Protein backbone atom coordinates (compact mmCIF):
# COMPACT_ATOMS: atom_id res chain seq x y z
CA UNK A 1 0.00 0.00 0.00
CA UNK A 2 1.27 3.46 -0.79
CA UNK A 3 2.51 5.49 2.16
CA UNK A 4 2.15 8.41 2.23
CA UNK A 5 -0.93 8.34 0.04
CA UNK A 6 -0.92 10.28 -3.20
CA UNK A 7 -4.72 10.30 -3.62
CA UNK A 8 -6.41 9.12 -0.41
CA UNK A 9 -4.58 11.75 1.59
CA UNK A 10 -7.43 11.96 4.09
CA UNK A 11 -5.97 8.72 5.48
CA UNK A 12 -2.72 10.51 6.40
CA UNK A 13 -3.86 14.06 7.09
CA UNK A 14 -7.01 14.59 9.13
CA UNK A 15 -9.29 17.29 7.72
CA UNK A 16 -7.39 17.75 4.46
CA UNK A 17 -10.82 18.59 3.06
CA UNK A 18 -10.40 22.00 4.71
CA UNK A 19 -8.63 24.56 2.53
CA UNK A 20 -6.23 25.67 5.26
CA UNK A 21 -5.09 22.13 5.93
CA UNK A 22 -4.83 21.35 2.20
CA UNK A 23 -2.72 24.46 1.62
CA UNK A 24 -0.50 23.64 4.62
CA UNK A 25 0.24 20.31 2.94
CA UNK A 26 1.21 21.67 -0.47
CA UNK A 27 -2.28 22.33 -1.72
CA UNK A 28 -2.64 24.55 -4.81
CA UNK A 29 1.16 24.81 -5.18
CA UNK A 30 0.85 22.83 -8.43
CA UNK A 31 -1.75 25.29 -9.71
CA UNK A 32 0.46 28.23 -8.80
CA UNK A 33 3.40 26.59 -10.58
CA UNK A 34 1.38 25.87 -13.73
CA UNK A 35 -0.23 29.30 -13.98
CA UNK A 36 2.98 31.24 -13.35
CA UNK A 37 5.70 29.06 -14.87
CA UNK A 38 4.11 26.81 -17.52
CA UNK A 39 2.17 27.26 -20.73
CA UNK A 40 -1.02 25.24 -21.25
CA UNK A 41 0.78 23.02 -23.79
CA UNK A 42 3.56 22.37 -21.30
CA UNK A 43 0.97 21.14 -18.81
CA UNK A 44 -0.48 18.79 -21.44
CA UNK A 45 3.00 17.49 -22.27
CA UNK A 46 3.87 16.73 -18.65
CA UNK A 47 0.64 14.77 -18.24
CA UNK A 48 1.35 12.95 -21.51
CA UNK A 49 4.88 12.12 -20.37
CA UNK A 50 3.60 10.83 -17.04
CA UNK A 51 1.66 8.08 -18.78
CA UNK A 52 -1.42 8.73 -16.63
CA UNK A 53 -4.32 6.60 -17.88
CA UNK A 54 -8.01 7.21 -17.27
CA UNK A 55 -9.14 5.76 -13.97
CA UNK A 56 -12.86 5.49 -14.74
CA UNK A 57 -12.42 2.12 -16.40
CA UNK A 58 -11.27 2.63 -19.97
CA UNK A 59 -7.62 3.39 -19.13
CA UNK A 60 -7.16 5.73 -22.09
CA UNK A 61 -4.00 7.92 -21.87
CA UNK A 62 -5.15 11.18 -20.33
CA UNK A 63 -2.59 13.52 -21.90
CA UNK A 64 -3.38 12.11 -25.34
CA UNK A 65 -7.09 12.75 -24.75
CA UNK A 66 -6.34 16.37 -23.82
CA UNK A 67 -4.22 16.72 -26.97
CA UNK A 68 -7.24 15.98 -29.16
CA UNK A 69 -8.92 19.25 -28.18
CA UNK A 70 -8.71 21.70 -31.12
CA UNK A 71 -6.84 24.86 -30.24
CA UNK A 72 -8.93 27.30 -32.21
CA UNK A 73 -12.50 26.44 -31.20
CA UNK A 74 -14.16 28.24 -28.27
CA UNK A 75 -15.61 27.95 -25.72
CA UNK A 76 -14.20 24.76 -24.28
CA UNK A 77 -15.41 22.79 -21.28
CA UNK A 78 -14.03 20.44 -18.67
CA UNK A 79 -16.43 17.90 -17.22
CA UNK A 80 -15.53 15.72 -14.25
CA UNK A 81 -17.25 12.36 -14.32
CA UNK A 82 -18.36 11.62 -10.78
CA UNK A 83 -21.22 9.35 -11.76
CA UNK A 84 -19.54 6.38 -10.00
CA UNK A 85 -22.15 3.62 -10.29
CA UNK A 86 -20.29 0.43 -11.20
CA UNK A 87 -21.17 -2.20 -8.56
CA UNK A 88 -18.30 -2.55 -6.15
CA UNK A 89 -16.91 0.96 -6.72
CA UNK A 90 -16.62 3.60 -4.01
CA UNK A 91 -13.25 5.31 -4.62
CA UNK A 92 -14.52 8.54 -6.18
CA UNK A 93 -16.90 8.98 -3.28
CA UNK A 94 -14.00 8.90 -0.83
CA UNK A 95 -12.06 11.42 -2.92
CA UNK A 96 -15.03 13.80 -2.95
CA UNK A 97 -15.65 13.48 0.77
CA UNK A 98 -12.08 13.13 1.97
CA UNK A 99 -9.83 15.09 -0.42
CA UNK A 100 -12.11 17.35 -2.47
CA UNK A 101 -9.54 20.12 -2.95
CA UNK A 102 -7.21 17.79 -4.83
CA UNK A 103 -10.08 16.99 -7.21
CA UNK A 104 -10.79 20.71 -7.60
CA UNK A 105 -7.14 21.59 -8.16
CA UNK A 106 -6.87 18.81 -10.76
CA UNK A 107 -9.94 20.20 -12.52
CA UNK A 108 -8.53 23.74 -12.61
CA UNK A 109 -5.19 22.46 -13.95
CA UNK A 110 -7.02 20.52 -16.67
CA UNK A 111 -9.06 23.56 -17.63
CA UNK A 112 -5.88 25.63 -17.85
CA UNK A 113 -4.19 23.00 -20.00
CA UNK A 114 -6.99 22.94 -22.58
CA UNK A 115 -8.06 26.56 -22.07
CA UNK A 116 -11.56 25.94 -20.87
CA UNK A 117 -13.46 28.64 -18.98
CA UNK A 118 -16.25 26.52 -17.51
CA UNK A 119 -16.07 23.24 -15.66
CA UNK A 120 -18.84 20.99 -14.37
CA UNK A 121 -18.44 18.26 -11.81
CA UNK A 122 -21.28 15.85 -12.62
CA UNK A 123 -22.05 13.81 -9.51
CA UNK A 124 -24.58 11.02 -9.51
CA UNK A 125 -27.75 12.08 -7.71
CA UNK A 126 -27.12 9.65 -4.86
CA UNK A 127 -23.92 11.60 -4.05
CA UNK A 128 -25.95 14.48 -2.59
CA UNK A 129 -24.06 14.26 0.73
CA UNK A 130 -20.57 13.98 -0.84
CA UNK A 131 -21.55 16.83 -3.19
CA UNK A 132 -22.29 19.02 -0.16
CA UNK A 133 -18.73 18.43 1.08
CA UNK A 134 -17.40 19.09 -2.41
CA UNK A 135 -19.44 22.30 -2.73
CA UNK A 136 -18.04 23.56 0.56
CA UNK A 137 -14.53 23.05 -0.82
CA UNK A 138 -15.54 24.80 -4.06
CA UNK A 139 -16.85 27.75 -2.04
CA UNK A 140 -13.55 27.88 -0.14
CA UNK A 141 -11.58 27.78 -3.41
CA UNK A 142 -13.61 30.67 -4.83
CA UNK A 143 -13.09 32.69 -1.65
CA UNK A 144 -9.34 32.13 -1.85
CA UNK A 145 -9.13 33.15 -5.51
CA UNK A 146 -8.37 29.71 -6.95
CA UNK A 147 -11.61 29.87 -8.93
CA UNK A 148 -13.42 32.72 -10.62
CA UNK A 149 -11.95 35.62 -12.56
CA UNK A 150 -8.19 36.17 -12.92
CA UNK A 151 -7.05 33.22 -10.85
CA UNK A 152 -3.93 34.04 -8.83
CA UNK A 153 -3.78 37.35 -10.65
CA UNK A 154 -3.32 35.76 -14.09
CA UNK A 155 -5.37 36.00 -17.29
CA UNK A 156 -6.90 32.60 -16.60
CA UNK A 157 -10.49 32.47 -15.30
CA UNK A 158 -12.68 29.46 -14.51
CA UNK A 159 -16.24 28.97 -13.30
CA UNK A 160 -16.90 25.62 -11.62
CA UNK A 161 -20.36 24.19 -11.03
CA UNK A 162 -21.29 21.05 -9.09
CA UNK A 163 -24.21 19.40 -10.92
CA UNK A 164 -26.15 16.41 -9.65
CA UNK A 165 -27.67 13.68 -11.78
CA UNK A 166 -30.79 11.80 -10.75
CA UNK A 167 -29.94 8.12 -10.71
CA UNK A 168 -28.77 6.44 -13.92
CA UNK A 169 -25.69 4.21 -14.32
CA UNK A 170 -25.63 4.91 -18.06
CA UNK A 171 -24.80 8.54 -17.26
CA UNK A 172 -21.31 7.36 -16.37
CA UNK A 173 -20.81 6.77 -20.10
CA UNK A 174 -19.16 9.97 -21.32
CA UNK A 175 -21.55 10.96 -24.07
CA UNK A 176 -24.64 9.94 -22.08
CA UNK A 177 -23.32 12.12 -19.26
CA UNK A 178 -23.02 15.07 -21.63
CA UNK A 179 -26.58 14.55 -22.84
CA UNK A 180 -27.79 14.37 -19.24
CA UNK A 181 -25.84 17.54 -18.37
CA UNK A 182 -27.50 19.24 -21.34
CA UNK A 183 -30.87 18.37 -19.79
CA UNK A 184 -31.72 15.62 -22.23
CA UNK A 185 -32.26 11.89 -21.67
CA UNK A 186 -29.02 10.31 -20.51
CA UNK A 187 -28.54 8.19 -23.61
CA UNK A 188 -25.20 7.83 -25.41
CA UNK A 189 -24.24 9.53 -28.64
CA UNK A 190 -22.70 8.10 -31.77
CA UNK A 191 -18.87 8.34 -31.71
CA UNK A 192 -17.03 9.67 -33.63
CA UNK A 193 -17.15 12.58 -33.17
CA UNK A 194 -15.64 12.29 -29.68
CA UNK A 195 -16.21 14.80 -26.88
CA UNK A 196 -12.76 16.36 -27.41
CA UNK A 197 -14.01 17.84 -30.66
CA UNK A 198 -17.80 17.84 -30.20
CA UNK A 199 -18.80 17.61 -26.57
CA UNK A 200 -20.89 19.68 -24.17
CA UNK A 201 -23.25 21.93 -26.14
CA UNK A 202 -21.36 20.75 -29.25
CA UNK A 203 -18.12 22.35 -28.10
CA UNK A 204 -14.68 20.78 -27.42
CA UNK A 205 -14.87 19.09 -24.03
CA UNK A 206 -12.41 17.19 -21.87
CA UNK A 207 -14.27 14.68 -19.73
CA UNK A 208 -12.30 12.73 -17.13
CA UNK A 209 -12.99 10.57 -14.10
CA UNK A 210 -12.59 12.05 -10.59
CA UNK A 211 -9.64 9.81 -9.70
CA UNK A 212 -7.89 10.61 -12.98
CA UNK A 213 -7.97 14.35 -12.26
CA UNK A 214 -6.90 13.83 -8.65
CA UNK A 215 -3.59 12.55 -10.07
CA UNK A 216 -2.89 15.79 -11.94
CA UNK A 217 -1.73 18.12 -9.09
CA UNK A 218 0.98 15.71 -7.86
CA UNK A 219 2.08 15.08 -11.46
CA UNK A 220 2.43 18.79 -12.18
CA UNK A 221 4.13 19.54 -8.88
CA UNK A 222 6.55 16.60 -8.84
CA UNK A 223 6.99 15.96 -12.57
CA UNK A 224 6.44 13.06 -14.94
CA UNK A 225 9.63 11.23 -13.92
CA UNK A 226 8.50 11.16 -10.30
CA UNK A 227 5.12 9.74 -11.34
CA UNK A 228 6.72 7.03 -13.48
CA UNK A 229 8.66 5.75 -10.48
CA UNK A 230 5.37 4.25 -9.36
CA UNK A 231 3.63 1.40 -11.11
CA UNK A 232 4.81 -0.24 -14.31
CA UNK A 233 5.92 1.14 -17.64
CA UNK A 234 2.56 0.69 -19.33
CA UNK A 235 0.53 1.26 -16.17
CA UNK A 236 2.30 3.96 -14.17
CA UNK A 237 1.12 5.59 -10.99
CA UNK A 238 -1.09 4.87 -8.01
CA UNK A 239 -4.52 3.30 -8.28
CA UNK A 240 -7.29 3.14 -5.72
CA UNK A 241 -8.59 -0.43 -5.59
CA UNK A 242 -12.07 -0.97 -4.15
CA UNK A 243 -12.32 -4.33 -2.38
CA UNK A 244 -15.75 -5.73 -1.50
CA UNK A 245 -17.73 -8.93 -1.13
CA UNK A 246 -16.53 -11.87 0.92
CA UNK A 247 -13.47 -10.36 2.62
CA UNK A 248 -12.85 -9.39 6.23
CA UNK A 249 -11.67 -5.86 5.48
CA UNK A 250 -13.55 -4.40 2.53
CA UNK A 251 -12.55 -0.86 1.60
CA UNK A 252 -10.43 1.39 -0.58
CA UNK A 253 -6.75 0.52 -0.93
CA UNK A 254 -4.31 2.79 -2.76
CA UNK A 255 -1.64 0.67 -4.41
CA UNK A 256 1.03 0.98 -7.07
CA UNK A 257 -0.20 -0.52 -10.32
CA UNK A 258 1.47 -3.84 -11.04
CA UNK A 259 2.99 -4.22 -7.57
CA UNK A 260 0.15 -5.99 -5.74
CA UNK A 261 -1.40 -9.32 -6.71
CA UNK A 262 -5.00 -10.40 -6.10
CA UNK A 263 -3.63 -12.78 -3.48
CA UNK A 264 -1.96 -10.00 -1.55
CA UNK A 265 -4.96 -7.72 -1.96
CA UNK A 266 -7.41 -10.31 -0.64
CA UNK A 267 -5.36 -12.02 2.05
CA UNK A 268 -2.93 -9.37 3.26
CA UNK A 269 -4.71 -6.06 2.75
CA UNK A 270 -8.23 -7.47 2.85
CA UNK A 271 -7.66 -9.70 5.86
CA UNK A 272 -8.70 -12.87 4.08
CA UNK A 273 -12.13 -14.46 3.66
CA UNK A 274 -14.62 -14.74 6.55
CA UNK A 275 -14.64 -18.22 8.01
CA UNK A 276 -11.35 -18.99 6.29
CA UNK A 277 -13.26 -20.12 3.22
CA UNK A 278 -11.69 -20.48 -0.19
CA UNK A 279 -12.09 -17.84 -2.87
CA UNK A 280 -14.15 -19.21 -5.74
CA UNK A 281 -14.20 -16.30 -8.18
CA UNK A 282 -12.96 -12.74 -8.56
CA UNK A 283 -14.65 -9.91 -10.39
CA UNK A 284 -11.84 -7.40 -11.04
CA UNK A 285 -13.94 -4.60 -12.49
CA UNK A 286 -17.34 -4.69 -10.87
CA UNK A 287 -20.05 -6.31 -12.96
CA UNK A 288 -18.52 -5.29 -16.28
CA UNK A 289 -15.57 -7.61 -16.82
CA UNK A 290 -15.42 -11.41 -16.97
CA UNK A 291 -15.51 -13.45 -13.78
CA UNK A 292 -12.16 -15.10 -13.09
CA UNK A 293 -11.96 -18.47 -11.37
CA UNK A 294 -9.66 -18.17 -8.35
CA UNK A 295 -6.87 -20.39 -9.64
CA UNK A 296 -3.32 -20.03 -8.31
CA UNK A 297 -2.41 -18.28 -11.55
CA UNK A 298 -5.24 -15.78 -11.20
CA UNK A 299 -4.49 -15.12 -7.53
CA UNK A 300 -0.87 -14.40 -8.44
CA UNK A 301 -1.84 -11.96 -11.19
CA UNK A 302 -0.71 -8.41 -10.42
CA UNK A 303 -3.28 -5.62 -10.59
CA UNK A 304 -2.43 -3.64 -13.70
CA UNK A 305 -4.21 -3.19 -17.01
CA UNK A 306 -2.00 -5.55 -19.06
CA UNK A 307 -1.74 -8.41 -16.57
CA UNK A 308 -5.45 -8.64 -15.81
CA UNK A 309 -6.24 -8.57 -19.52
CA UNK A 310 -3.79 -11.39 -20.08
CA UNK A 311 -5.49 -13.36 -17.31
CA UNK A 312 -8.75 -13.18 -19.27
CA UNK A 313 -10.53 -10.15 -17.82
CA UNK A 314 -10.00 -6.40 -17.40
CA UNK A 315 -8.83 -4.17 -14.56
CA UNK A 316 -11.28 -1.41 -15.48
CA UNK A 317 -11.99 0.71 -12.41
CA UNK A 318 -10.33 -1.91 -10.15
CA UNK A 319 -13.58 -2.67 -8.31
CA UNK A 320 -12.65 -6.10 -6.96
CA UNK A 321 -15.60 -8.18 -5.77
CA UNK A 322 -14.67 -11.45 -4.07
CA UNK A 323 -16.94 -14.50 -4.26
CA UNK A 324 -16.20 -17.38 -1.87
CA UNK A 325 -16.85 -21.11 -2.25
CA UNK A 326 -20.40 -20.83 -0.86
CA UNK A 327 -21.54 -18.42 -3.57
CA UNK A 328 -23.86 -19.79 -6.25
CA UNK A 329 -22.33 -18.47 -9.50
CA UNK A 330 -25.65 -18.62 -11.34
CA UNK A 331 -27.21 -16.52 -8.56
CA UNK A 332 -24.35 -13.99 -8.87
CA UNK A 333 -24.72 -13.78 -12.66
CA UNK A 334 -28.48 -13.36 -12.22
CA UNK A 335 -27.96 -10.46 -9.78
CA UNK A 336 -25.56 -8.73 -12.20
CA UNK A 337 -27.94 -9.27 -15.13
CA UNK A 338 -30.71 -7.65 -13.08
CA UNK A 339 -28.39 -4.66 -12.68
CA UNK A 340 -27.82 -4.27 -16.41
CA UNK A 341 -31.48 -4.83 -17.28
CA UNK A 342 -32.49 -2.07 -14.87
CA UNK A 343 -29.80 0.30 -16.09
CA UNK A 344 -30.22 -0.26 -19.84
CA UNK A 345 -31.12 3.15 -21.27
CA UNK A 346 -33.46 1.67 -23.88
CA UNK A 347 -31.92 3.33 -26.92
CA UNK A 348 -30.78 0.24 -28.80
CA UNK A 349 -32.69 -2.98 -29.38
CA UNK A 350 -30.02 -5.59 -28.62
CA UNK A 351 -29.40 -4.21 -25.12
CA UNK A 352 -32.95 -3.20 -24.26
CA UNK A 353 -34.55 -6.44 -25.41
CA UNK A 354 -31.54 -8.67 -24.76
CA UNK A 355 -31.06 -7.74 -21.11
CA UNK A 356 -34.80 -8.10 -20.58
CA UNK A 357 -34.83 -11.66 -21.96
CA UNK A 358 -31.63 -12.71 -20.18
CA UNK A 359 -33.20 -11.59 -16.90
CA UNK A 360 -36.47 -13.43 -17.62
CA UNK A 361 -34.48 -16.61 -18.29
CA UNK A 362 -32.51 -16.22 -15.03
CA UNK A 363 -35.82 -15.85 -13.21
CA UNK A 364 -36.99 -19.14 -14.69
CA UNK A 365 -33.74 -20.77 -13.61
CA UNK A 366 -34.14 -19.38 -10.08
CA UNK A 367 -37.72 -20.68 -9.98
CA UNK A 368 -36.53 -24.13 -11.02
CA UNK A 369 -38.66 -24.15 -14.15
CA UNK A 370 -35.98 -23.64 -16.82
CA UNK A 371 -35.48 -26.38 -19.40
CA UNK A 372 -32.14 -27.36 -20.90
CA UNK A 373 -33.18 -25.58 -24.08
CA UNK A 374 -33.88 -22.34 -22.18
CA UNK A 375 -30.45 -22.41 -20.61
CA UNK A 376 -28.95 -22.77 -24.09
CA UNK A 377 -31.07 -19.82 -25.21
CA UNK A 378 -29.73 -17.70 -22.32
CA UNK A 379 -26.15 -18.20 -23.47
CA UNK A 380 -27.21 -17.71 -27.08
CA UNK A 381 -28.95 -14.40 -26.37
CA UNK A 382 -25.76 -13.11 -24.72
CA UNK A 383 -23.73 -14.09 -27.79
CA UNK A 384 -26.24 -12.39 -30.06
CA UNK A 385 -25.95 -9.12 -28.12
CA UNK A 386 -22.16 -9.04 -28.38
CA UNK A 387 -20.76 -6.56 -30.86
CA UNK A 388 -24.16 -5.15 -31.74
CA UNK A 389 -24.91 -2.58 -29.06
CA UNK A 390 -24.80 1.18 -29.35
CA UNK A 391 -22.53 1.49 -26.32
CA UNK A 392 -20.53 -0.70 -23.99
CA UNK A 393 -23.25 -1.12 -21.34
CA UNK A 394 -24.90 -3.72 -23.55
CA UNK A 395 -21.56 -5.34 -24.31
CA UNK A 396 -20.64 -5.56 -20.63
CA UNK A 397 -24.08 -6.97 -19.79
CA UNK A 398 -23.03 -10.13 -21.60
CA UNK A 399 -19.91 -10.49 -19.50
CA UNK A 400 -21.31 -12.10 -16.30
CA UNK A 401 -23.43 -14.46 -18.41
CA UNK A 402 -20.74 -15.67 -20.80
CA UNK A 403 -17.92 -15.87 -18.25
CA UNK A 404 -20.07 -17.83 -15.82
CA UNK A 405 -21.05 -20.28 -18.55
CA UNK A 406 -17.41 -20.59 -19.61
CA UNK A 407 -16.06 -21.60 -16.20
CA UNK A 408 -19.07 -22.94 -14.29
CA UNK A 409 -21.36 -24.54 -16.90
CA UNK A 410 -22.01 -27.46 -14.54
CA UNK A 411 -23.78 -25.09 -12.11
CA UNK A 412 -26.23 -24.13 -14.85
CA UNK A 413 -26.76 -27.73 -15.87
CA UNK A 414 -27.52 -28.68 -12.29
CA UNK A 415 -30.42 -26.24 -12.34
CA UNK A 416 -32.16 -27.73 -15.33
CA UNK A 417 -35.67 -28.81 -14.39
CA UNK A 418 -35.50 -32.50 -13.62
CA UNK A 419 -36.32 -34.67 -16.59
CA UNK A 420 -36.12 -31.81 -19.10
Amino acid at each position, binding site marked *: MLQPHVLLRDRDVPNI*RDLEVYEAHGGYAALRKALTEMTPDEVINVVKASGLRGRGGAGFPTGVKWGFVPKDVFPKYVVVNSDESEPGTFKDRQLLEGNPHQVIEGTILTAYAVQAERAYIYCRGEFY*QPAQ*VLQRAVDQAYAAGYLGRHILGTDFSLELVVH*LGAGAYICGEETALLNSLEGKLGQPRLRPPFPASVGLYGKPTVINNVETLANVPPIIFNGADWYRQMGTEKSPGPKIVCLSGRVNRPGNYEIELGKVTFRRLIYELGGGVPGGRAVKAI*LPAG*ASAPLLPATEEVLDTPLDYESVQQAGSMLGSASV*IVLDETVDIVWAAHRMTA*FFEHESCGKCTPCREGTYWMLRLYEKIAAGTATRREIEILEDVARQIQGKTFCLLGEFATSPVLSSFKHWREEYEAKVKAGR
Partner: protein
Amino acid sequence: MIRDKYAREIETILARYPDRQSAILPLLYLVQKEHGYCTEEGIREVADLLDLDPTTVKSIVGFYTLLYERPVGKYVVQICNDLPCALRGADDLVEHACRRLGIRPGETTSDGLFTLETVKCIAACHRAPVAQINLEYHENLTPEAFDALIERLRTEGMPSADGRIPGVVGLEPELSEEEGRGATG
Protein backbone atom coordinates in the same frame (compact mmCIF):
# COMPACT_ATOMS: atom_id res chain seq x y z
CA MET B 1 -45.64 27.30 -7.74
CA ILE B 2 -41.88 26.98 -7.44
CA ARG B 3 -41.25 30.21 -9.32
CA ASP B 4 -42.84 32.15 -6.47
CA LYS B 5 -41.29 30.33 -3.52
CA TYR B 6 -37.88 29.69 -5.06
CA ALA B 7 -37.41 32.71 -7.32
CA ARG B 8 -33.91 33.44 -6.05
CA GLU B 9 -32.83 29.81 -6.27
CA ILE B 10 -34.19 29.44 -9.79
CA GLU B 11 -32.29 32.52 -10.91
CA THR B 12 -29.06 31.15 -9.41
CA ILE B 13 -29.58 27.78 -11.06
CA LEU B 14 -30.35 29.20 -14.51
CA ALA B 15 -27.21 31.35 -14.40
CA ARG B 16 -25.03 28.25 -14.08
CA TYR B 17 -25.62 26.99 -17.61
CA PRO B 18 -25.22 28.61 -21.03
CA ASP B 19 -28.24 26.58 -22.18
CA ARG B 20 -31.20 26.62 -19.81
CA GLN B 21 -32.32 23.09 -20.62
CA SER B 22 -29.41 21.96 -18.43
CA ALA B 23 -31.39 23.25 -15.46
CA ILE B 24 -34.07 20.61 -15.90
CA LEU B 25 -32.79 18.29 -13.16
CA PRO B 26 -32.22 20.96 -10.49
CA LEU B 27 -35.66 22.45 -11.23
CA LEU B 28 -37.35 19.05 -11.00
CA TYR B 29 -35.61 18.53 -7.65
CA LEU B 30 -37.14 21.86 -6.54
CA VAL B 31 -40.57 20.61 -7.61
CA GLN B 32 -39.99 17.43 -5.67
CA LYS B 33 -38.91 19.33 -2.58
CA GLU B 34 -42.06 21.41 -2.75
CA HIS B 35 -44.67 18.81 -3.71
CA GLY B 36 -43.06 15.54 -2.60
CA TYR B 37 -42.93 14.22 -6.15
CA CYS B 38 -43.01 15.51 -9.74
CA THR B 39 -46.64 16.57 -10.03
CA GLU B 40 -48.30 17.35 -13.37
CA GLU B 41 -48.45 20.98 -12.31
CA GLY B 42 -44.78 20.99 -11.37
CA ILE B 43 -43.81 19.40 -14.67
CA ARG B 44 -45.78 22.01 -16.59
CA GLU B 45 -44.17 24.78 -14.59
CA VAL B 46 -40.65 23.47 -15.33
CA ALA B 47 -41.57 23.14 -19.01
CA ASP B 48 -42.74 26.71 -19.01
CA LEU B 49 -39.62 28.01 -17.23
CA LEU B 50 -37.34 26.23 -19.70
CA ASP B 51 -39.43 26.79 -22.83
CA LEU B 52 -39.84 23.05 -23.35
CA ASP B 53 -42.66 20.68 -24.14
CA PRO B 54 -44.24 19.15 -20.98
CA THR B 55 -43.88 15.73 -22.65
CA THR B 56 -40.13 16.27 -22.91
CA VAL B 57 -39.96 17.14 -19.22
CA LYS B 58 -42.07 14.14 -18.26
CA SER B 59 -39.78 11.84 -20.27
CA ILE B 60 -36.90 13.06 -18.11
CA VAL B 61 -38.85 12.25 -14.94
CA GLY B 62 -39.53 8.75 -16.22
CA PHE B 63 -35.89 8.13 -17.10
CA TYR B 64 -34.30 8.79 -13.72
CA THR B 65 -34.56 6.66 -10.55
CA LEU B 66 -34.57 9.57 -8.10
CA LEU B 67 -37.43 11.49 -9.71
CA TYR B 68 -40.89 10.25 -8.76
CA GLU B 69 -43.95 10.30 -10.97
CA ARG B 70 -46.32 9.32 -8.16
CA PRO B 71 -46.61 10.36 -4.50
CA VAL B 72 -44.06 8.78 -2.21
CA GLY B 73 -43.73 8.64 1.56
CA LYS B 74 -42.16 11.41 3.60
CA TYR B 75 -39.10 9.16 3.87
CA VAL B 76 -37.96 7.12 0.89
CA VAL B 77 -35.97 4.17 2.24
CA GLN B 78 -33.69 2.85 -0.48
CA ILE B 79 -31.82 -0.36 0.38
CA CYS B 80 -29.15 -1.52 -2.05
CA ASN B 81 -29.47 -5.18 -3.02
CA ASP B 82 -26.87 -5.22 -5.78
CA LEU B 83 -24.25 -7.99 -5.84
CA PRO B 84 -21.62 -6.66 -3.38
CA CYS B 85 -24.30 -5.74 -0.81
CA ALA B 86 -26.12 -9.05 -1.40
CA LEU B 87 -22.87 -10.84 -0.52
CA ARG B 88 -23.02 -9.15 2.87
CA GLY B 89 -26.60 -9.69 3.96
CA ALA B 90 -28.59 -7.09 2.01
CA ASP B 91 -31.34 -9.55 1.04
CA ASP B 92 -31.94 -10.36 4.69
CA LEU B 93 -32.14 -6.66 5.50
CA VAL B 94 -34.68 -6.10 2.75
CA GLU B 95 -36.86 -8.90 4.12
CA HIS B 96 -36.51 -7.48 7.62
CA ALA B 97 -37.50 -4.02 6.37
CA CYS B 98 -40.56 -5.47 4.64
CA ARG B 99 -41.67 -7.20 7.85
CA ARG B 100 -40.93 -4.17 10.01
CA LEU B 101 -42.78 -1.71 7.79
CA GLY B 102 -45.47 -4.11 6.66
CA ILE B 103 -44.95 -3.34 2.96
CA ARG B 104 -43.16 -4.81 -0.08
CA PRO B 105 -40.52 -2.92 -2.12
CA GLY B 106 -42.20 -0.26 -4.21
CA GLU B 107 -44.98 0.31 -1.67
CA THR B 108 -45.70 3.07 0.86
CA THR B 109 -46.91 2.63 4.43
CA SER B 110 -50.56 3.55 4.97
CA ASP B 111 -49.60 6.47 7.24
CA GLY B 112 -47.66 7.95 4.32
CA LEU B 113 -44.38 7.99 6.25
CA PHE B 114 -42.22 5.41 4.50
CA THR B 115 -41.72 4.22 0.95
CA LEU B 116 -39.46 1.19 0.62
CA GLU B 117 -37.35 0.61 -2.48
CA THR B 118 -34.55 -1.69 -3.47
CA VAL B 119 -31.87 0.13 -5.46
CA LYS B 120 -28.70 -0.60 -7.39
CA CYS B 121 -25.16 0.08 -6.16
CA ILE B 122 -24.82 3.35 -4.21
CA ALA B 123 -21.03 3.21 -3.67
CA ALA B 124 -21.04 1.96 -0.08
CA CYS B 125 -20.17 -1.70 -0.72
CA HIS B 126 -17.49 -1.67 1.99
CA ARG B 127 -20.10 -0.84 4.62
CA ALA B 128 -22.90 -3.10 3.47
CA PRO B 129 -25.72 -3.52 4.16
CA VAL B 130 -26.58 0.08 3.44
CA ALA B 131 -29.59 2.27 2.82
CA GLN B 132 -30.16 5.82 1.73
CA ILE B 133 -33.08 7.68 3.23
CA ASN B 134 -33.89 10.89 1.36
CA LEU B 135 -30.33 10.70 -0.02
CA GLU B 136 -28.68 10.38 3.40
CA TYR B 137 -26.41 7.39 3.85
CA HIS B 138 -27.04 4.88 6.64
CA GLU B 139 -24.30 2.30 6.53
CA ASN B 140 -23.42 -0.94 8.34
CA LEU B 141 -27.16 -1.24 8.75
CA THR B 142 -28.02 -4.22 10.92
CA PRO B 143 -31.70 -5.07 11.48
CA GLU B 144 -31.42 -3.55 14.97
CA ALA B 145 -29.92 -0.35 13.60
CA PHE B 146 -32.65 -0.25 10.95
CA ASP B 147 -35.36 -0.53 13.61
CA ALA B 148 -33.76 2.23 15.69
CA LEU B 149 -33.51 4.43 12.61
CA ILE B 150 -37.17 3.98 11.70
CA GLU B 151 -38.20 4.75 15.26
CA ARG B 152 -36.08 7.89 15.31
CA LEU B 153 -37.60 9.08 12.05
CA ARG B 154 -41.09 8.45 13.41
CA THR B 155 -40.52 10.38 16.62
CA GLU B 156 -37.90 13.02 15.77
CA GLY B 157 -38.09 13.38 12.01
CA MET B 158 -35.00 14.34 10.00
CA PRO B 159 -33.70 17.71 11.21
CA SER B 160 -30.59 17.42 9.01
CA ALA B 161 -32.86 17.79 5.98
CA ASP B 162 -34.39 21.10 7.08
CA GLY B 163 -33.92 23.86 4.56
CA ARG B 164 -31.99 21.65 2.17
CA ILE B 165 -33.06 20.72 -1.33
CA PRO B 166 -31.99 17.12 -2.03
CA GLY B 167 -30.38 17.05 -5.44
CA VAL B 168 -29.20 20.65 -5.58
CA VAL B 169 -26.07 22.11 -3.96
CA GLY B 170 -24.50 25.55 -3.95
CA LEU B 171 -27.61 27.52 -3.11
CA GLU B 172 -26.63 28.30 0.46
CA PRO B 173 -23.47 28.03 2.56
CA GLU B 174 -22.73 24.38 2.82
CA LEU B 175 -21.83 22.24 5.78
CA SER B 176 -20.54 23.55 9.06
CA GLU B 177 -17.29 22.15 10.41
CA GLU B 178 -19.05 19.52 12.49
CA GLU B 179 -21.34 18.32 9.72
CA GLY B 180 -18.39 17.91 7.38
CA ARG B 181 -16.85 15.16 9.50
CA GLY B 182 -17.46 11.51 9.01
CA ALA B 183 -16.25 11.02 5.47
CA THR B 184 -15.83 7.59 3.93
CA GLY B 185 -12.34 6.91 5.27
